[in-house]
């Protein structure tokens, strides 16, 4: 990990409220950037915003980092209005997905903005066969499907309202198709409700599953103990740091609240 200074070379809307941000920085060279890791962005020209914004890595090559983010609050709103210039960020942070060495059948399940980090998995480890299940609230929020189509043997899409793909939810879609695909591993990212369903599906199908969690973060490096995830088993758990011990955890060990 390193404190980096980069140039914004692209920041464009790719779906409603969803932006692709490309940053070029020589500070990224010689870094170990792994799928599932994230960058912590300082919102340019915004000293009043005291916290950085953790954004997962969508793609990475040499000195170029691609991030996909959704506008959810003041920070991302301001970020979406920036057309270029310098950006300060820390990268790359966190523990990413642990990928098998021998060629395997991997199911990627991404819900909404949670689809973004899954792209870099397939680009980083092309020796595996990928099946991708992508879920969105509606067709306006769909992005990068062409890219995932190219990276996957099969791509299934569902929306909550049926405006694109199947009218279904990712949990239902996964449950319906898991036996046919019979993956060696499931890697997922999305809202907790989806991840909890996947945890249960993976458990009953006896398939290893890793999930990328989200939390409100402070420092992003593990020092401030702010972004806690409940990890362990019902009667024996500890708060682990989402930023440094995660964001990717073994689904079996994640305890969801409620």
């Amino acid at each position, binding site marked *: *990990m*390193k*404190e980096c200074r980069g140039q914004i070379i692209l920041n464009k809307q790719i779906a409603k409220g969803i932006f692709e941000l490309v940053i070029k920085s020589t500070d990224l060279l010689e870094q170990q950037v792994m799928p599932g890791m994230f960058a912590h962005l300082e919102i340019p020209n915004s000293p009043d915003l005291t916290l950085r914004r953790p954004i997962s890595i969508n793609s990475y090559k040499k000195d170029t980092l691609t991030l996909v983010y959704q506008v959810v609050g003041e920070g991302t709103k301001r970020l979406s209005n920036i057309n270029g210039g310098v950006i300060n960020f820390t990268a790359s942070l966190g523990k990413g997905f642990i990928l098998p060495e021998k060629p395997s059948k991997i199911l990627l399940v991404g819900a909404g903005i949670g689809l973004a980090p899954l792209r870099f998995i397939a680009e980083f480890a092309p020796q595996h066969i990928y099946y991708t299940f992508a879920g969105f609230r509606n067709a306006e929020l769909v992005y990068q499907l062409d890219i995932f189509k190219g990276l996957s043997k099969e791509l299934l899409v569902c929306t909550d309202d049926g405006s694109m793909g199947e009218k279904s939810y990712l949990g239902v879609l996964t449950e319906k198709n898991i036996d046919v695909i019979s993956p060696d591993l499931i890697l997922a990212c999305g809202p907790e409700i989806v991840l909890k369903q996947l945890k249960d599906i993976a458990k009953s199908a006896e398939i290893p599953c890793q999930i990328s969690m989200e939390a*409100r973060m402070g*420092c992003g490096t593990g020092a401030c103990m702010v972004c806690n995830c409940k990890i362990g088993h019902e009667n024996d758990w500890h708060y682990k740091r989402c930023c440094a011990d995660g964001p990717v955890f073994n689904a079996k060990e994640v305890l969801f609240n409620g």
Partner: protein
Amino acid sequence: MVDFSVEICGIKFKSPIIAASGTFGFGKEMQQFYPLSRLGGISVKGLTLEPREGNNPPRIAETNMGMLNSVGLQNPGIKYFISELLPWLSEQNTVIIANIAGNTIEEYCQMAELLANTKVDMLEMNISCPNVKQGGVQFGTNPDAVYKITTEVKKYSKQPLMVKLSPNTADIKATAQAAEDGGADAISLINTITGMAINAYTKKPILGNIIGGLSGPAIKPIALRMVYEVSKIVKIPIIGMGGIYTGEDMAEFMIAGASAIMVGSANLSNPLACINIEEQFVKYLTDTNTEHASELTCSLII
């Protein structure tokens, strides 16, 4: 070449910049960005007698020019700190300050005793954490309670004892005086100011703990005022903190009466905060022809 080393309670700090407790873990993470020897010292994450998991998430909320946190002293416990973390930390060539927080006076005393024969250089008695139900701030708001706990812990501490004061009190001068009267060797202030954040649309609090502690640039004027007021009545050294983000902020705290300063929230805003502040501070000393950083302490011109 400017000299920005300072001596506090007989301990030499090579710089007046100390990482504030709770924003710097136990140093391991931040040493990936710069050698810890660049710092005057580190006040470690608040330690308790037993390990603590801390509060429910979310534990942080951004506010205008500030942030609220409600971590609630998540830490691996003092014994783990002494056996597993301190050996490495004490070799980093910087002053190590152990921040301790107890549920009872006895717990504070036990922790001071456990630390007595370790390589910890100084104790920071945290009687001002707003995020725990027991202990913490309950000892820090009432002058009589501050006096009592300071005299008791002083019996067991071998290292200089610094008392970290809470701003959540009617009269900061009275608690500072009580700490000095109780035998404190130094005072650090301020801890966070209690606050809260609400989402207007969901009508829910942002923090899992509902209430948290406000820090960052938003609280700097309050912190400066408190350092100034306390410096006028106590003789023991003051370590000032509260929203220090620049070298000039740091100079202002020293001018108001601090012998050294702590950087807290800024570490969350930027992992290189302490280094950037140091560079700006050195430039300030040069620009103002200040030979020794210590000349700044209590140099307010009225």
